[in-house]
C-alpha cells in the first residue's frame, strides 16, 4: 500500500504545474472564456510536444506509453489551473475509447494525429435533457445498405465547434431502449449535414449543440460493434469519469489553498480572519472534504488502472467530487467575503465551472443510483 506518487508521477506533476503556471495564467483563462475557439492553439501544441496528448497511447500510435495513473496526475494539475480547451474531450472522452474498441485501422488513423495535437475530438452523447443517460438517446442512425443515415440532435458536446472529429452515440435499433440498441460512430465534424452552434455557458467552455440532418456514415465508422455502443459509454464512464474527478480534485485543492491564504492574510478586528473559530472550522471542514476526495479519487483511479471492475469506486468518487467541488467554491467565496464575489478575483473562475464538471459524465443522482445498485439495492 502506498499513498505516494512514484518518481515519474511526481516529476510529471511538477513539470505540469510549472508549465501551466506560465502558459495558463488566470488572465489567460479569462481571455479564453471570451474567445470563440475557447482554447489556445499554441498552448495546445506545446502540450502535444510535451507528450501529454498521447501520454497513455502505446508508442506505435505516437504515444508515450505511460500509465493511467500518470494521466490522472496530469488531470489534477490541469484542474488546478482550470485549463481551458479540448484536452479532456479529445483525450479522455474520445481517444480512450478508440484505444480500447478501435480496429487496428481506426487506431492507426485516429490516434497519432491526436498524439501530435493535430486533431480535436468531441463526444456527442447527451441530448436535449442535458443528462448523461442512455434513456434519452433519440438521435437515430438508420441502416441503408452498408451505410447509416444519422438524424437528430446532441447537446453539451464539448468543443464540437472546433473539433475535427466527433464520437457520436446513436440509436441504431429503435425497437430497443435504454442501454440497448446504441452504436458509437466516429464521424468527421465537417461532414455534410452537421451543424454546430455554441451554447453560451458561464465559463465559455465551448459546449455545443449539434444538429445532424441526413448525415451519411459507413459501417467502417462504427467504433466497436453495431448495437453495442453502450459498452463504449460504459467503458468511458469508468476511465473518463475518474479522470474528470481528478481534474475536479485539483481544482478543489486550488480553491482551498487560495482561501486558506486569504484567511491568513485578511485582517479584521485586528486579527487574520483565520483566527476566528467559525472561519477556521469551515476551513478545516473544507480540508477534510478535499483530502477525502483526493484519496477516494486516487483509490478509484488505481482500481481502474488495474483493469478491475471499478464501477462502485468511480461512482463514489464522482458523487463526492460533485459535492465537494461545489461546497469548496461556495464556502471559499463566503470566506473571502465581498471580494470573492467579483469578476476580478480568481475564485469566481472556479465557481463558474462547477456545473460543467458536475454534469459531465453523470450527475450526483446518477452516480448515487449506481452506488445503490452496486450495494445490492
Amino acid at each position, binding site marked *: 500500500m502506498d499513498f505516494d506518487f512514484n518518481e515519474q508521477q511526481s516529476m510529471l506533476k511538477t513539470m505540469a504545474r510549472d508549465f501551466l503556471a506560465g502558459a495558463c495564467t488566470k488572465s489567460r483563462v479569462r481571455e479564453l472564456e471570451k474567445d470563440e475557439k475557447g482554447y489556445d492553439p499554441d498552448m495546445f501544441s506545446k502540450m502535444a510536444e510535451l507528450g501529454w496528448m498521447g501520454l497513455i497511447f502505446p508508442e506505435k500510435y505516437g504515444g508515450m506509453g505511460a500509465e493511467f495513473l500518470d494521466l490522472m496526475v496530469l488531470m489534477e494539475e490541469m484542474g488546478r489551473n482550470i485549463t481551458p480547451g479540448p484536452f479532456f474531450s479529445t483525450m479522455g472522452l474520445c481517444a480512450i475509447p478508440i484505444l480500447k474498441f478501435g480496429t487496428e485501422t481506426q487506431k492507426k488513423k485516429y490516434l497519432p494525429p491526436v498524439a501530435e495535437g493535430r486533431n480535436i475530438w468531441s463526444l456527442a452523447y447527451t441530448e436535449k435533457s442535458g443528462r448523461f443517460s442512455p434513456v434519452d438517446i433519440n438521435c437515430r442512425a438508420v441502416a441503408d445498405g452498408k451505410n447509416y443515415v444519422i438524424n437528430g440532435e446532441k447537446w453539451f458536446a464539448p468543443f464540437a465547434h472546433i473539433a475535427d472529429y466527433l464520437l457520436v452515440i446513436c440509436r441504431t435499433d429503435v425497437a430497443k431502449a435504454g442501454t440497448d440498441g446504441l452504436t458509437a460512430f466516429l464521424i468527421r465534424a465537417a461532414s455534410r449535414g452537421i451543424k454546430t452552434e455554441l451554447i453560451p455557458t458561464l465559463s465559455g467552455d465551448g459546449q455545443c449543440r449539434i444538429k445532424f440532418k441526413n448525415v451519411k456514415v459507413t459501417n467502417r465508422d462504427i467504433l466497436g460493434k453495431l448495437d453495442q455502443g453502450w459498452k463504449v459509454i460504459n467503458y468511458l464512464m469508468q476511465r473518463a469519469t475518474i479522470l474528470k474527478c481528478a481534474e475536479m480534485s485539483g481544482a478543489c485543492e486550488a480553491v482551498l489553498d487560495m482561501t486558506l491564504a486569504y484567511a491568513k492574510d485578511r485582517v479584521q478586528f485586528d486579527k487574520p480572519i*483565520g483566527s476566528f473559530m467559525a472561519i477556521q472550522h469551515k476551513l*478545516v471542514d473544507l480540508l477534510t472534504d478535499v483530502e477525502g476526495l483526493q484519496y477516494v479519487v*486516487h483509490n478509484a483511479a*488505481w*482500481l481502474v488502472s488495474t483493469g478491475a471492475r471499478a464501477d462502485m469506486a468511480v461512482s*463514489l468518487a464522482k458523487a*463526492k467530487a460533485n459535492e465537494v467541488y461545489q461546497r469548496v467554491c461556495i464556502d471559499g467565496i463566503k470566506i473571502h467575503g465581498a471580494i470573492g464575489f467579483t469578476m476580478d478575483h480568481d475564485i469566481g473562475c472556479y465557481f463558474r465551472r462547477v456545473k460543467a464538471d458536475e454534469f459531465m459524465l453523470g450527475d450526483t443522482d446518477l452516480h448515487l*443510483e449506481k452506488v445503490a445498485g452496486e450495494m445490492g*439495492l
Partner: protein
Amino acid sequence: MDFKFGEKEDRLREEIKKFAKSELVGMVGVSGLEEESRDEDWEFSLQISKKLAQRGWLTMAWPKEYGGQGASFTEQYVYMDEASYRGIPGTQMGVSGIGWVGQSLMLFGNEEQRKKYLPSIAAGEPDGIWCTAYSEPNAGSDFANIQTRAIKTGDEYILNGQKIWTSCAHRARWCWMAVRTDPNAVKKQHGISLIILDMKSPGITIKPIVNYAGIHIFNELFFDNVKVPVSNLVGTENRGWYHLMQSLAFERHSIAPQFYGGAKRTLEYIVKYVLETKYNGKPMAADPLVRHKLAERAVELETLRMFSLEITWKMGKGIIPVYEAARNKAYCDLVMRNIATTGTEIIGAYSQVDVRSKWAKIMGNITRMYMMFPGISIAGGTDEVQKNIIGQFKMGLPRPY
C-alpha cells in the same frame, strides 16, 4: 501508488473470519465501551480478549519483547478492520491499554515500565486492563485546566483531587492519568505530568455514572491522599502536556480503523433490511429516497476507509499522526451519526424499541448506535477540539481561542 493488501494480510483476514465464526456462535457481541457495562458482556469480552492474545493478534504491531508480533501497521489495520467487521468483542478492553498506553510507554516511558506493564496488556488479561483519567469537572475541552494534584514527597507523589468521565475505571487494574505536579507553573500546560496509578491503591473512590440509555461506562474518581511511587511517573515531570499530545494522537488514530468495519457491517444490515422489508407492496429497497440515503452513507464510509488506510500507511512510515488522528476522529463521529440517523429513519418507530426486546430490528444495532454516538463524539475530544488541532497543526492558523 496502490491500495492493495498483500497475501499475508488476506490470509489474516480469512483467519479472523474463521475465528469469529467459531467463537461468536449465535451471539451478538457488545463491543467497545458498551462491554464495560454489564458483567456478562464484560466476562464474555474477557474470554475473547484472552483468545485473541493467544492467537497473537491483540497487540500484534508491538515488538516481540513486549508481547507483540512485530507485525506491520498494515497487518494490525487488517486485524482491527476485520475484527470490527465481524463484531468480535474484547479487542480493546478498557480501550486505553491497547489504544494508547502501550504505544505511549514505548515512545516516552522507560524500559522498567515497559517490562512491567506491556506484557499483561498483550496477554489480554484482567491485569492488563487500563482506564484513562484526563477530564475533571472543570477541565473538559480545557484540558490544561486540570487541578488534581500529585505533590512529590520523598519517593512518592501524594495524589488529591477528582476525575470525571473515566470510562472503565470500575473494571481497570491500572489508570493512565494526567495530574498537576506544579501548581505554580505560570503556563497551565507546564505543570502537568503523566502518571500510572494502581487502582488497588487505598484512597480511591469510584462512583458510577450511568448514561441516558442505562449503560455504565463512565465514572467519577475521588483521590484522598493516594500514594503513587515516583517510578510511576511517565516521561519527564511537568512535560506531561507534550507527551499527552502524542498519546491523544494514538487514541484518536485508533478510532477510525476500529469503527469502520462495524459501520460497514451495520450498513450491510440496513441494506439487507430494506431488501427484505416491504412497504406498499414493494421492497423498501426500491424506494429512490432510501437508495439515495444509503448511497450517500456509502460515500462517507468510503471516505472514512481511505482516511483509515492513510493514517495506517503514515504510521508505518514513522509519522505520528496528529492532525490526521483529529481529522479521522471527527469524521468517524460524522459517519456514526449519519448511519445511526439514517438507520433510524429506515426502521422508523422501531428505533425506540429496547435493544434487547424481541421486537427490536436489526438486533438493536441501530438504536444502540443512535444512543451511543453523541457520547462517542464528545469522548476523546469534541468536534471543536479536533478542528482546532487541525486548524493549528495542519493549516497553520492561529489558535482560535
